[in-house]
């Protein structure tokens, strides 16, 4: 893999993939999400957002980074149930040795669990603007069941899950 001199994290990998878990948190009445991605891919996406400014991602403080993460994540993950969009809200970031974890949530208001059955559509274009071969694997957990599929160029980065 070609190294980008503007990217500081050097986790070598030969593939472009993220893994995202969606869980329904009944107590908090929220959909919680967790994206796992590679630090260098993430840094490159953030630098692309900063293209117009004379600053690099590594030079940002934690608040500036959080604002950038929120902007990018909320633009690139969309969730809707039976045609009704749910606003995705960035929650925070956690960094491991070889990966970055991004947390987000979407409130589903006063719906009951059974109201959450139906057709879920997930549009997940994270990093697809940077890497043409980007693949975003989605694992959706619903009432003890789990469905896995991947958002890729071939399906226009969109998935449908029926529960």
């Amino acid at each position: 893999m070609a190294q980008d001199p503007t990217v500081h994290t050097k986790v070598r990998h030969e593939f472009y993939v993220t893994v995202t878990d969606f869980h329904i948190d009944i107590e908090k009445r929220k959909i919680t999400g967790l994206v796992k991605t590679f630090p260098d891919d993430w840094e490159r996406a953030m630098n692309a957002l900063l293209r117009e400014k004379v600053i690099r991602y590594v030079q940002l403080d934690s608040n500036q980074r959080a604002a950038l993460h929120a902007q990018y994540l909320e633009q690139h993950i969309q969730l809707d149930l039976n045609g009704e969009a749910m606003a995705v809200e960035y929650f925070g970031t956690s960094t491991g040795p070889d990966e970055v974890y991004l947390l987000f949530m979407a409130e589903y208001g006063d719906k009951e669990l059974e109201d959450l059955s139906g057709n879920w559509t997930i549009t997940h274009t994270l990093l697809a603007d940077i890497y043409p071969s980007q693949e975003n694997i989605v694992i959706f957990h619903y009432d003890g069941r789990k469905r896995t599929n991947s958002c890729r160029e071939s399906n226009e980065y969109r998935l449908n899950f029926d529960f």
Partner: protein
Amino acid sequence: MFYFNLGVRHITDLEAYDHMLFLLALTLPFSFGQWKATLKWITAFTLGHSISLALAATEVIRIPSHWVELGIAITISMTVGYHLINGFKVVQGAIWLSGIFGLIHGLGFGSYYSFITQNDSFWWAWIPFNLGIEAGQVLVVLALLFVYWAVEKILRNTKATKWMLSGMILTLSIQMILDRLSF
């Protein structure tokens, strides 16, 4: 089914063409009539691949990825070299070579596999993922054997075709080795 499909796709993905190149090299001495023997070689490769994938993904074995990538390129050159030395004859008992080379290739998938699976899905996804790899390889190899058969029918000179293919694979794999040496 998702992990099975993922396994198939990893073999048939033209962007990761080193695996495809290895299959092309491996099948050089075979003809369509020898499809059963070919599948045995492929299965030996998958077994080696499955074992080392699990060992690498669980970090029992840790080899830097650039060494693994270099090793994969070398196995392609060695496979072609082996068939050239043996005059494209299927050497009985050489199936173990396929298994050993599978071990090297499987190491290359370890980090990918551990990234995409989680603790609860690691082992139950392992079987369909590897079955998908086997299925993908069988598809590719049967297609190759069919092409060899068609070439034999049309050109009536498979040896020349195999020499030509060997030259092409060898060139590409040496290029790959040189690229991967510059890490």
